[in-house]
């Protein structure tokens, strides 16, 4: 576990920093209390509609394609680290794996799944 000590130190520093900012602003920042302050500021126009908006399905498509290719990239790390010792057989196995996914990439490219405006 001690090998990870620097990492945990980093976590701790990050956490402290965030806490410090929050506490700092609430201590040091100017405080305006009053009804005016609570009003939503929207360039003079009354705010309308619900609190939530619905996102387009495009976001979902992009996100799931991202997940798929993210997982693909994950497999590249161990291969890259062991690239030399795996030799040609490793290269061939990785090419076999990738070629299937490259077809998938070309497919969604041609299908227009990567385009935003359509």
């Amino acid at each position: 576990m001690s090998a990870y000590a620097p990492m945990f130190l980093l976590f701790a520093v990050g956490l402290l920093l965030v806490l410090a900012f929050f506490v700092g602003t609430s201590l040091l920042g100017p405080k305006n209390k009053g009804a005016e302050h609570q009003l939503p500021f929207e360039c003079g126009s009354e705010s309308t509609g619900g609190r939530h908006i619905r996102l387009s399905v495009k976001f979902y498509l992009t996100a799931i394609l991202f997940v798929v290719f993210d997982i693909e990239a994950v497999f590249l790390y161990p291969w890259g680290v062991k690239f030399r010792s795996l030799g040609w057989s490793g290269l061939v196995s990785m090419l076999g794996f990738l070629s299937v996914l490259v077809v998938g990439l070309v497919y969604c490219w041609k299908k227009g799944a990567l385009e935003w405006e359509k």
Partner: protein
Amino acid sequence: MSLWFALSPLIVLTFGGLGLMMADAFSKTRSDLALGSFLTFTSAGLFALALWIMGGVPAAVMLKVAPYIVLDKFTLFFTATICLGGAISSLLAGGYLPEHDIDRGEFYALMILAAIGAVLLAAAGDFLSLFIGLETMSLGVYCMTGFRRTNPRSAEGALKYFLLGSFAAALMLYGGALIYGATGSTSIEGIRTALTSGEFGTLRDPSRLATVVIAMVLVLVGLAFKISAVPFHMWTPDAYQGAPTPATAFMSVVVKAAAVATMMRVLLVAFGDKASSSWSSGWPPVIAGMAVLTMLVANFIALRQENVKRMLAYSSIAHAGYLLVGMVAAWGQGNEIVAGEGRAALLFYMLQYTVTQAGAFGALILCGSKGKEAVTYEDLAGLGRRHPGAALPFALFIISLAGVPPTAGFFGKLYLFRAAVDGGFTWLAIIGLLNSALGAYYYLRVLVFLYMKEPAPGAAQATPMKSGYIYGALAIAAALVLYFGILPGKALEMAASAGKSLGAKIEVREVPTKMPDTATAALP
């Protein structure tokens, strides 16, 4: 034999699927994806048959991909069955999708990739590849169910199927993890070895046995879900009804075939040891109970259906019950001969069910056309007189589903129940027979509507569609239904041989080499 040839069914499916995707993405004009998909399935099936005729894959080649992919005759049999179901379904899709304005090429890619998952599932000799195959197949089928996204029924069916399916898959994964923890192995063969020998063979620690039992139950739940056995059938009617009919055909035959194959491998091989497969402390009574429950519930609910597609969904559940009877027969109380007969009967039943059920859905597609799909019994009224050509295939498949000679369904049921009787499960066979009689009632109702009823005056009538693809699919299915119904010998023989190869140890027999060992001779 090279590894490439041994894996050729999978490779053909892969290249076919990827090729179709590229054709779909690149071609400017509509390309004939249905035909391409049909040819892919057919050639993959033929490669499996070729491997079979050459005497199966030699052990030395099998060992290269074992235990993840087991290329025994059992796998080849199921590969051929899956490809048959896929081929019929792709022809059905070729007729159905354009007719109902959902003609998108993704359907074929999904179907072939899902079939790859199904083949992997049937071939999986290890929980790792089993799970990958299961998920590949399931994801494809979920998407096919929800293919008609804007149709609320399609979306509802897909969502139910997806949520319950992922839950079942998670349970199965947990079962696999537990069994790995208890035996230290994920491979079917390794689990078997661990359970029959060493600490487990002379098992004295009840808590570890309990772990195995819990794992077994969890895995069983996952598989029972996939073959839609009661009480894990809740999703089936909605998913089958909501899905585009070719997808329903694909689901009800290919998914079931792959799940039956896995169930056989997991229960008969991995959990085939004395303790796990005894009547007093193992899985057989659970399977038998589930079989009875499945047959009764499905048949009674099917009686009350007014929608033919939904009736066929319940009929598919009922057939899962018959398959489970076969599962008990395939266990055969550990008696080799009885079990062999049971395995053969189960495999033959699966094969004939594939052509019959896919054909029945195809016939249902044929009876409707754009704007008016045939879904209720009323829609079928009088078709026998108005369109005898459309009614005749439907009648044939319905007769086969009911199990009336001279169709494949008759021999399927005959062998199955005979194997159950021989295995000492006369009571199970009797319940099965009574249920078949019950089933005959709602199957015959289709015939009554086809040939003896007239449509209500003024009701919108479904007119049969015209499509060469559908005719082709029905011709293939009908020919096979009659072939298995009149000359079942060859198929039964293959089923017996496939059943025998299940669980056989993959060993390379020492072949004396004639070649002088020059490498060592040259050394000083």
